[in-house]
Every structure is written in C-alpha cells, then in structure tokens.
C-alpha cells in the first residue's frame, strides 16, 4: 500500500510528498507505518510519538485529510472507508496534492499550526490558548483535612472534559481556528468549562470570564468538527454552548436589573 507523506523542512523552497510502500498487515497503524518508513527508507522522516496507545496525545496528524492520532488509526480501516469522517466548512491550506483514496493513505501535519519539519508542528499557539484560560484548580474554601466530597454523578459530568488529552486534533479541525489565529479553540474552552462545573471551585460564572471575549466563547460557529475528531469523545461544542447560555443569562439579568428603579 502507498503511504504518501508530506515533507518539509526550513531551507526547502516548497513542501513535497514522498510515497512509501508499506505492507498493510492486520492491525497496522499509521504510526507503525511511519516507523517503518523511517527505519527502512528514510531516517530523516520526522514525526512525534510517545505512548503508541492513544493516551498521550502526541501523534495527532492529518490522515486522509482528517486530524487523527496516528497510533490509533489503522491502515486497513482507512482503505476500507470505515473511518470516513465528513468535516464541516473545512478548508485546508495545504497543497492540493492529488491522492487516490482507494489505494493511498495521505499523511500531513496538523493544519492551523506552523510546520517545524515534516509532520511535526509547533504547538506553541495551542498551549498559549491553554495557558490563557488559567487552567488551574482554584478551590472555593481552605483545604479541609480530608477530601472534598463529590458525587459519582458530578464525576461523570467532569470526566466528559477531563478525558481530553490535549492532542490538538480539535484545534486543527476547527474552521474558526482556520480563519482566526486568535481564536482560543475547542480544547482550551472545554478545559475552562471543566473548572466552571467543578463544584469544589464555587466561583460561579466568574470562572468563565477568561474566555468571555470575541476570540473566546463567542467565536465558535458550532460546526462540531471538534467533537467529531476527538479521539476521546470530548464535546467542546457542548461546553461552549452551556457557557454562552450562562453568560447570556447573566447579562440579560444584569440589563433588566438596571432598568428597575
């Protein structure tokens, strides 16, 4: 099987695509295919990796024009069309490389982030957004001697968002991130919402304020690509929707409060 890989490093005039012949044995993942290409054909091929078990979030890349974890994506399933995933309003800035979906797998770096080399992107923009939402637990009261109590139902609500592995697949799939480089993006907003709904914080809607700006909660267009590509099933669109409702309600209450004498 042909695996067609985006190649670029500083000094090259423009990117090119290299094609590697890889045996698509059962269960073989894109990450394994890249290791094969690197060890057998070209040791200059660069891509990030770590856990190879879809838990660390390192190896997100654009596979057949969809952001996915390379370690979780199997060659066989791609070719069989089992992983086809339509994305909404998704305009890719990369080369319009001809690509025969029936017999080739196309592997490119995540869009919306600058390429360092080949499949490695600079994640700084993504983590700047992460830091901007002040992602740290701020308890509402002094630490008790034991744990603060929490119901299993609350844990289930929080787990919807705490399972995020910060792989940036959502950031790369988001059409708003594609056109607005200042948009904080789905992962950071979902993370912020996780703190908002943590009953141990007791900050109320004030916790939402670090993203209460045009490039925060309000930039989302609800195309829901984020949720579709998330390897962990996190729904950032849902967090954004809830946050907006809450902020709108507060503003409405405040406005109507002002009218009263």
């Amino acid at each position, binding site marked *: 099987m042909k695996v067609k890989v985006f190649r670029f*490093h*500083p000094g090259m005039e423009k990117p090119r695509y290299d094609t590697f012949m890889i045996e698509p044995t059962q*269960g073989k993942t894109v990450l394994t295919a890249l290791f094969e290409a*690197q*060890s*057998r054909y*070209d*040791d*200059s*091929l*660069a*891509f*990030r*990796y*770590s*856990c*190879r*078990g*879809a*838990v*660390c*979030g*390192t190896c997100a890349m654009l596979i057949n024009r969809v952001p996915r974890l390379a370690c*979780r994506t199997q060659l066989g399933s791609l070719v069989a069309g089992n992983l086809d995933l339509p994305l909404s309003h998704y305009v890719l800035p990369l080369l319009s490389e001809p690509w025969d979906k029936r017999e080739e797998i196309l592997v490119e770096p995540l869009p919306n982030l600058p390429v*360092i*080399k*080949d499949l*490695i992107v600079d*994640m700084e923009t993504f983590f700047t957004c*992460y*830091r901007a939402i*002040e*992602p*740290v*637990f701020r*308890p509402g009261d002094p*630490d008790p*001697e*034991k*744990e*603060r*109590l*929490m*119901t*299993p139902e*609350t*844990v289930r609500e*929080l*787990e919807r968002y*705490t*399972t995020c*592995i*910060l792989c940036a697949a959502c950031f790369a799939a988001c059409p708003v991130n594609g056109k607005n480089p200042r948009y904080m993006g789905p992962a950071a907003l979902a993370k912020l919402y996780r*703190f908002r709904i*943590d009953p*141990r914080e007791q900050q109320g809607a004030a916790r939402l304020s670090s993203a209460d700006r045009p490039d925060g909660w309000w930039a989302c267009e609800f195309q829901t690509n984020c949720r579709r590509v998330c390897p962990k099933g996190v729904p950032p669109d849902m967090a954004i929707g809830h946050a907006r409702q809450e902020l709108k309600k507060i503003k409405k209450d405040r406005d109507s409060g002002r009218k009263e004498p």
Partner: protein
Amino acid sequence: MARPPVHDYDVIIIGGGLTGLRAALQISRADLSCAILSKVHPLRSHSVAAQGGMNASLRNVPGSRGAIDSWERHAYDTIKGSDYLADQNSVVLMCKEAAATVIELEHMGTVWSRLENGKIAQRPFGGAGFPRTCYAADRTGHNILHTLYEQVTDKKIPVYEEFFVTSLVIDSGQCTGCTALEIMTGTVHGFCAKATLMATGGFGRIFSRSTNAIINTGDGQALAIQAGAFLKDMEFVQFHPTSLKGTNILISEAARGEGGILINRNGERFMTRYAPQSVDLAPRDVVARAIEQEIVAGRGFDGGCVHLDLRHLGEERIRERLPGIRLIAIDFAGVDPITEPIPVQPGQHYSMGGIGVGIEGRSGLPGLYAAGECACVSVHGANRLGGNSLLETVVFGRLVADSIIRDVRSEPVPASEPVLSAMKEMEEKINGILGRSGGEPLFPIIDSLKETMDTKFGIFREGSIMVKGLGEIYKLRERLGNITISDKNRAANQALIRYLELEYMFPVAEAVALGAIMRKESRGSHTRMDYPARDDDHFLNHTIASRQNEEIAITYAPVTLGMFTPEERVY
C-alpha cells in the same frame, strides 16, 4: 560567534512526568529557581499511561468482614510483594505518606472516582489485602499528570520541552549540571545547577515486548552510571501479566480488580491452580509466570496468549469503571470486552531497579538526586505491587525536593567552565556521529538489542542462555561506532536522538544482564530455571552496579529489614 546558551538554576529536574512535576512544585514553593528538562512535552510522559490507581490506606471502603486498613498493612503487603527485597524503612515512609498524598492531589483538583457517599473510591488490586487502590476510572495517571502540569503552569516554572539530555557535568566529583540537545533546532545547551534531579522513568524499551511508551529508553539510568553514580537491583524487571496480544499495550490490573478472570484455551480458570487464595489477583510476578507456563504447555490461544474475560461484569460496570480499557481493546485488538474476552500476554512493564538512592533521594554522586521509576529507593524490591508506582512518584517527588531544598542552600554557585567544556565536547561528538559515512544502519541494531533482552532475559531465565545474551549485547555494542545516519541535519533529527538513546540502552542492558546472571536464586520477578528457590543466605541483598573503567562491576549491599521478617510468599 553567538554566545553558547548556558542556563543557570538552583535546581534542574530531568524528566517532566509525575515525579519531576511534583518535585518542581515543591522547589518553586521554597523560592529556589528550578527548571524542568524533558525530551517530550511533559503531558506526553509515560506517567500519563498509568491506568489502575494509587494505593493509600484511606479506609473509605471496608475490607472483608469489616477489617480496617492501615499503613502497616499496606507496608506488609508491599514488603511481602517485594519478596522481602524492599528496604523496609523506605516502604514504611511511603505507606505513611500515602493517604496525605492522595488527599493532596484531590486538593490540587484531581477528579478521583467517588463512592456514593462522596468519598474517594477504592478498589482491590493484586497482592493487596484490602480494597486500597484509589483511582480515576482507568485513567489515573492521565488525571494526576494533567493536575500537576496545571499547577506547574500556574507557577510559571520554566519547562525546556523537547530537550534531550546528553551528559551530566561533573566538577571535582560533584554533579553541577548537564548538557542537552534542543531537539527541534539541534543546538547544544548547557545547564548549570547546584542540584540535578533525575526523574526520567523506566527503561522498558530495552525490551521489544513492553507496555512502556516508546520514549522509555533508560536515559537517566545510563547518564547516572556513566557519571559515577551506581545502579541498584537492575535485574528486577516486572512483566505485566496482561498486555494486549501483539501491541503489548497495557490492560490494567484494575480489570481483574473489578472482577475480570483469566481463562486458558480449555476454558479453565487456571489461576486457581497457581494461587488458590488470591487467584486472578495474585501479584504480577506470580500471574505473569502462570500465564507464560500455560502458553508454554500448549494451553494458550493462537499467537501465544490467554483470555481476560470481563463479560460477566456487565456493560454498565465496564463502561463506568474500565472505559479506557474498553477503547484500547476495540482500537487495537478489534475486540469489545462487553461481548468478547480480551487476548492478553505478559509484557515488560516496570523497572524495579534504577539509580541507587538513599531514603532522602541522594545518589552515590554528590549533587545528583533521583526519584520515581528511574530511581531505586527500594520500595518495590523484587516485585512491585500495582498501585504503588504512582504513589512512589508523588511521595518521593515531594520528599526528594525537600532534601534538595535543605542541601542546596549551603552549596556554592557552580563554575560555568566545566559546563562550557562539556558543551564543546558534545558539539564535537554530535558532529562526529553525523560525519560518519558508509557504515551500517541504526534501526536493525536497536531491534536486535531489544530482541536479545526479550529472549534471553525474559520471565524465565537460565544461566547459560543469559551468558550468551550478554555476549550478544557486547557484540552489538561494538557496532555502535560503525552506525551511519543518513540525515545530516541537526534540526529535528530523530535518527540522531534514536542513536543517542541506543547508546544509553547498552549500559542499562548490561547492568540488567550482569545482575541477572550473578543472582543465582529466584526472587520476585527474577525467576531462574537453574536456581528455582529463593536464597536468603546469599541473596537477601541489593545488587549494586557501578562503572569500573569501561566495564560494569557488580557488588552487593544489605537490605534494610525492619518490622517484617522474611517468610515464604503464599498467595
């Protein structure tokens, strides 16, 4: 010419997993300057993959017949599990600190799974007399790592991400920093520090069948022994009983803690024969040996595996308690545990041995400290219990930082000349490696070394086979100098990083091999076909590996005993 990039801190921490992050927090609270260096982004550290949980005698869940848990019982289980090789003072310290450590993480925001009454949930784990393991579903490491990274981010502690440490700097017998290659640019940096903490994790990837992340190549252990510190108990390598067939991705012990059972091809629950009392929840060394024996006896399934059956737990419990395991089984084996058993086989999982340190985390080399999996403070001895590794990382991450805080206040600022000359040396070394041509490729040598470790130093070991294995390690090492990397660029040259990792893998493999050959007994994870019994008269001792000229020499040091007298392990 631009000034060489040299950075000064009171403390540098090599490794950004749980130990490194926890230590950094502690050091920053003491108003000392510190930085974390990691070859990956901290959130990509292998800590993230820990599934099952963290042991602490919180007493949130009663034991059988209403028995009450305590740190003493936790210590007893840990020491018995270690086959009495653990240092009992270290174990006692860890177990006493455990409850406060779980609570501390809760106070930092970790979302632990909860009981109906709102307290932190606990579940049974292998080799433990109580339901003692606190957990966050089956993503405990992920949850804690993200919590600690949030804290480190909040404190604005500098993190040198994707910096690969290339050497420790020694000045008059004292470790005064390190050199590191900035992977994405290829620039060599120097770090000057009063104290250096090694927190680099295990060395599982010197084996081919490992549950570990691909990055776990034993860099810290190799750097330490090369710089003059010693390694301890390196032959004690844990093989996890249940890694997914083929990919060897971890299937947590929590699966059996929740009630999962192991089945051979005859449909037999074979663990009843090997561990009549604990059955599937016997310690890992016992279960791994049992599975291997079933496979060798022809009672395994095709491809060398047995089945882990969760179906009787029911869909709801699997979705609630083991969601990550379910996804892994679906993604990587095409099996949904709700309807089908999971094919599993033993795989290398954990390094009980490591950089030898005292209870305060000081290594044999002044200025160098170590904690977590890369270290051996000896809380796991010859076999680690599930749920104790996450505990060790956070407890000793904090405690080693306290030692460092005490020690560095009286240390002078180190001289920068040794760091500068080490940088120059490293620059020349890298140019030398990239300058080679016409030699042999890198990757087959990595594969051969891993294959040797798997086949000659696996679950069942035998003297003559291991001696052959050691010979293979030496022969492969001779070929290092002949390896040619085609990519001649300095920036983001992953082949170069893999080459440097391979250099680290050799002393680590050699220490494992020598320790295993010379320990003529069976204890915990170290099983000798030719010496099947434990031999307390000769080997109730730690193995000490240190560098003597170009060779590794083995000596022994006594185990610190205490409240528990060694006895036969029955489960």
